[in-house]
């Protein structure tokens, strides 16, 4: 079968899985629903591998195929098809998405086992994977927007999965609204592209873009800036990032899948896919790179003081995506996508481990209360350590190779891009610190009461269900988390998934070692061959020097974290006291939420209130009621003619006759 056929199958299985589980939720036993969901994504992954094999059979320059099922509209210059594009980039994304999703489905199989909304969860999760695959496989901008919107909806549905929790529903709405802002940018960009080039199809657009646009013309810059709006909303970059920490209200598998591995990488994918346009608008690309850099640093600083475990990991995600955005904006396409892949591995793993620990703490998420899990949960701690090492770019882990490759490229591009290298290394230093802050807080030391209970009895600590963010009481019926909490040590499916990811997080970097093998870059290069930036390659020596610097920085960061949190634990507290203002500023996430509330939310509410009180009441109601009054008045007048009195009818008759006679008199004279 051809690669495109395999890709259609890739799309089909998750959709089928979602529908089957949704329709049969009463009939299907719980385990069956989970099995169907996982199997659907597994089949999708298999088809993705088959598509890869099929593409390998083509020569490297001919590995892009477009295929369409039917036409949506082919009138008046529009030519919109239900079409997918199968090339190296989309197959790469398909493999990453389906691979990590299969493992996360496997993890959820055990983790969500006692939740009342199990079937709903798997149905939503499958639907999300379907939408994400639609997004990456889309062959034209219209289908991209469709997948984009579906992904936004799936994210909303999954964040507010525990719908009786008010914090969760509010977080879901916040995510959706900010995503809509991005959607506006994306749709406007698509329309502008259509206006300038006349087509939505990727092939046509990217081929004709250099002919239609001059470099840095306002139109292509506008298009790219609007695309960036969409990308930044989806990938949680400044200033549209405020939804990501709140999105941690969703169950841990959701955080792992959507907010680490797949949905938040959609923005990076978008910039990579439309690189032909960004090449023509270097200003927009530079803006993107700088915003990515800013996000990188801001998120890293916030993660240093975060006390909620999941939110700290969320800020780490934001920071790493900043790296990816920098990568694909400055031209290190292969490196950026490689970092996307490795990040999916170790971030998903970190979330899974965090989920296990939070389960052991009976849904408590504050790291100040956690300690000593190294002894209580061996497997989880090892998994967390693997993920943490990869995140901190410890030498020879996957994160080591991927992150530093981006920085090496920035250095070799020269000029102002050296700033990216320098600040990127600083960010890596902070990354190592905050990652091992978490690890050194949670794993070593005296076991906290919950950990002690686990060591002593082997049972997970039970507490009355409560909302970890606000502390209010809950129950365990549908709409809230289930009564049982499942940890990796007690669930085989969770262990398998985490083990695979741990392995990949550690050794995944070996496929892209500079000078030795360049599997990912070689695979993706033909896609980006039309970009002049792709021709810049750091020499192998410089690459290894960069890697060495990165490794050293990572070790330094781990050493600092060890100093602060293991050997001299009183230091953090004294530092906090000395820099009280800075600490508060960072703790409140640079006051972005407050700023957006002041600048956007309050004016919007005020406008809404004015619209209701003034406009609605006087203008709209006035028009409607005014029309009604006019009609009623007129009809009242007309009704008075029919009063039932014969004499008044006779009067009208005579009046009509007199009028007629008058008319004839006048006309005849």
């Amino acid at each position, binding site marked *: 079968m051809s690669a495109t056929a395999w890709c259609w199958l890739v799309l089909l299985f998750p959709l089928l899985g979602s529908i089957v589980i949704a329709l049969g939720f009463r009939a299907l036993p719980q385990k069956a629903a989970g099995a169907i969901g996982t199997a659907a994504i597994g089949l999708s992954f298999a088809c993705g591998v088959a598509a890869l094999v099929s593409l390998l059979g083509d020569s490297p320059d001919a590995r892009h195929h477009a295929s369409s099922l039917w036409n949506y509209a082919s009138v008046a210059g529009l030519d919109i098809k239900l079409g997918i594009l199968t090339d190296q980039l989309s197959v790469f994304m398909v493999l990453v998405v389906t691979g990590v999703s299969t493992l996360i489905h496997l993890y959820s199989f055990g983790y969500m086992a006692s939740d009342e909304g199990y079937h709903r969860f798997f149905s939503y999760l499958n639907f999300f994977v379907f939408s994400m695959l639609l997004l990456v496989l889309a062959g034209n901008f219209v289908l991209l927007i469709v997948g984009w919107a579906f992904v936004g909806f799936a994210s909303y549905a999954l964040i507010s999965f525990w719908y009786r929790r008010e914090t969760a529903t509010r977080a879901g709405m916040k995510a959706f609204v900010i995503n809509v802002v991005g959607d506006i940018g994306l749709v406007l960009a698509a329309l502008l592209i259509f206006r300038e080039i006349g087509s939505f199809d990727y092939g046509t657009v990217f081929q004709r873009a250099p002919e239609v646009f001059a470099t840095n013309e306002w139109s292509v810059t506008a298009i790219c800036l609007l695309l960036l709006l969409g990308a930044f909303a989806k990938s949680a970059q400044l200033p549209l990032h405020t939804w990501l920490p709140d999105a941690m209200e969703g169950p841990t598998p959701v955080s792992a899948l959507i907010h680490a591995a797949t949905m938040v990488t959609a923005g990076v994918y978008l910039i990579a896919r439309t690189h032909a346009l960004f090449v023509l608008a270097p200003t927009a690309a530079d803006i993107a790179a700088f915003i990515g850099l800013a996000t990188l640093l801001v998120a890293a600083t916030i993660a240093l003081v975060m006390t909620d475990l999941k939110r700290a990991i969320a800020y780490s995600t934001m920071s790493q995506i900043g790296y990816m955005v920098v990568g694909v904006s400055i031209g290190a396409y292969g490196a950026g996508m490689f970092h996307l892949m490795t990040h999916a591995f170790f971030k998903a793993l970190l979330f899974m481990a965090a989920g296990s620990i939070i389960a052991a703490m009976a849904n408590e998420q504050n790291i100040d209360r956690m300690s000593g899990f190294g002894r209580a949960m061996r497997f989880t701690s090892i998994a967390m350590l693997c993920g943490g090492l990869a995140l901190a770019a410890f030498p020879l882990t996957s994160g080591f190779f991927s992150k530093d490759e981006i920085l090496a490229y920035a250095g070799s591009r020269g000029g102002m891009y050296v700033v990216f290298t320098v600040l990127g290394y600083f960010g890596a230093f902070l990354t190592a610190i905050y990652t091992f802050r978490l690890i050194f807080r949670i794993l070593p030391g005296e076991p906290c009461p919950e950990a002690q209970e686990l060591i002593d009895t082997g049972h997970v600590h039970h507490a009355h269900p409560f909302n970890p963010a606000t502390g209010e009481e809950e129950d365990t019926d549908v709409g809230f988390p289930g009564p049982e909490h499942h940890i990796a040590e007690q669930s085989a499916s969770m262990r398998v998934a985490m083990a695979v990811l741990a392995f990949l997080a550690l050794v995944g970097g070996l496929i892209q070692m500079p000078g030795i093998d360049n599997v990912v870059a070689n695979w993706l290069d033909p896609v980006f061959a039309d970009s002049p930036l792709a021709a810049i390659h750091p020499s192998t020596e410089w690459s290894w020097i960069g890697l060495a610097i990165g490794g050293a920085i990572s070790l330094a960061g781990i050493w600092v974290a060890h100093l602060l949190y293991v050997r001299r634990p009183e230091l953090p507290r004294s530092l906090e006291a000395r820099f009280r203002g800075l600490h508060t500023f960072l703790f409140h996430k640079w006051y972005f939420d407050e700023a957006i509330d002041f600048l956007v939310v309050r004016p919007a509410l005020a406008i809404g209130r004015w619209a209701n009180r003034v406009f609605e009441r006087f203008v709209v109601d006035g028009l409607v009621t005014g029309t009604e009054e006019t009609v009623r008045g007129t009809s009242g007048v007309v009704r008075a003619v029919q009063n039932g*009195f014969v*004499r008044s009818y006779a*009067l009208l008759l005579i*009046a009509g*006759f007199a009028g007629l006679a*008058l008319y004839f*008199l006048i006309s005849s004279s």
Partner: protein
Amino acid sequence: MEAVLFFVAAIGALGGAIGVIAMRNPFYSVLALIAHLFSLAVLFLLLTAAFVAAAQVVVYAGAVMVLYVFVVAYVGGGGESAWEPIPGQRLLAPLLGIALFVELSVAVLGSALKALETKGPDVGAGFGNPAAIGRLLLAAVGAIVLAARRREAEGDTPSKHSPTRLEGVSPSAPQA
């Protein structure tokens, strides 16, 4: 001579007409109409339409009006209330009447109507005895007046009785 007769008859006709519409008591309206009809008969004679004049007197004044008189006697009928339920009727009706008259007059006067001086052939002669007819009429009217007087004398008005019975006249229908 002819003009004098015309004006006299015209005033009589007009007076009768105004009497019809102005009198409160319908009986008086009937009488006014009878006067009007006679004036009209004179006008017909002036137009040398003797047959029509005679027919007017015999048919209209003699039969139709007698019928009217009987019915008015039977029904009675007082005046009407002064209050007008339809707003604007009392104002508009005279206006329209005047308007109608003006329009018709303008139409007539505006056109060129030849004045005819010669009289036509004498149409009616010897059609009934005017005196006999007049006496019959008088008898009928007198009978009714007397009947009405007798009813009043007995302290009875027609509205007090059941409508199926007429005092002073033998009942033609069995008692209901």
